[in-house]
């Protein structure tokens, strides 16, 4: 699924990476716990999270996650947006809560998730 479609489905606002919305995502992970993201997430994934700090971006960087969606209307600071921009990571925000956001993407066909590998 392209990031552009995800933006539409979640009625999200792009904070950085507007020109990268043709990127393809094959899996997604919804978590506020970065330790779990580091343990279980697989390739070409996107992260949905209600946690807002710079370590979310660093975790994404280490995991080769190219897009992060902040849910429940959480607003990342300028420092976080700048960090994401420097790491070539797309950031969006949506007012939707985690359960609804994940459910909508899953229903739309984005069914790949975390793996135990």
């Amino acid at each position, binding site marked *: 699924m392209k990031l552009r479609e995800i933006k539409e489905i979640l009625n999200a606002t792009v904070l950085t990476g507007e020109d990268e919305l043709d990127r393809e995502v094959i899996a997604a992970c919804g978590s*506020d*716990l*970065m*330790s*779990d993201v*580091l*343990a279980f997430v697989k390739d070409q994934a996107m992260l949905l999270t209600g*946690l807002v*700090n*710079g*370590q*979310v971006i*660093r*975790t994404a*960087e*280490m*995991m*080769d996650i190219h897009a992060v969606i902040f849910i429940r209307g959480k607003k990342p600071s300028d*420092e976080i947006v700048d960090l994401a921009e420097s*790491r070539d990571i797309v950031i969006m925000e949506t007012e939707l809560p985690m359960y609804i956001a994940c459910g909508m993407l899953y229903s739309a066909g984005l069914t790949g998730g975390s793996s135990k590998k």
Partner: protein
Amino acid sequence: MSEPLMVLHYNVDGSDFTVAGEASGAVKKVLKQLGVGAEVIRKVAIAMYECEINMVIHAHGGSIDVEIRPESVRMIHKDVGPGIPDVEKAMQAGFSTASQQVRELGFGAGMGLPNMKKYTDEMKITTELGKGTIVDMTVYIK
């Protein structure tokens, strides 16, 4: 073991959580420039990042030496923190002594050491209470 192609040294600031991950990100970039495979880079980045986070939240920072060889990447993390009282217990998934503050930042789930073990081919922990800890990890380049 052959001579390292490259040796990198980083100091990890223990007082600033926001910069934890700088060293791991830098090493990731270097490995990419050297043309190392994506899977190896990912393993190194995750293991090193987990260790860097641990150094900041548990041990007031420290230093990291990275040795890059044609056949492996070795990361030696040294801190002068409190040491690990029970390494076996610390290796169990889910066991954590992290503070509530650290948990609110998205860490402290007790997955750090198990994750480092999972993503590396060799891992050795040398620790002494009140003196510090050395975590020595190697990822093979196949």
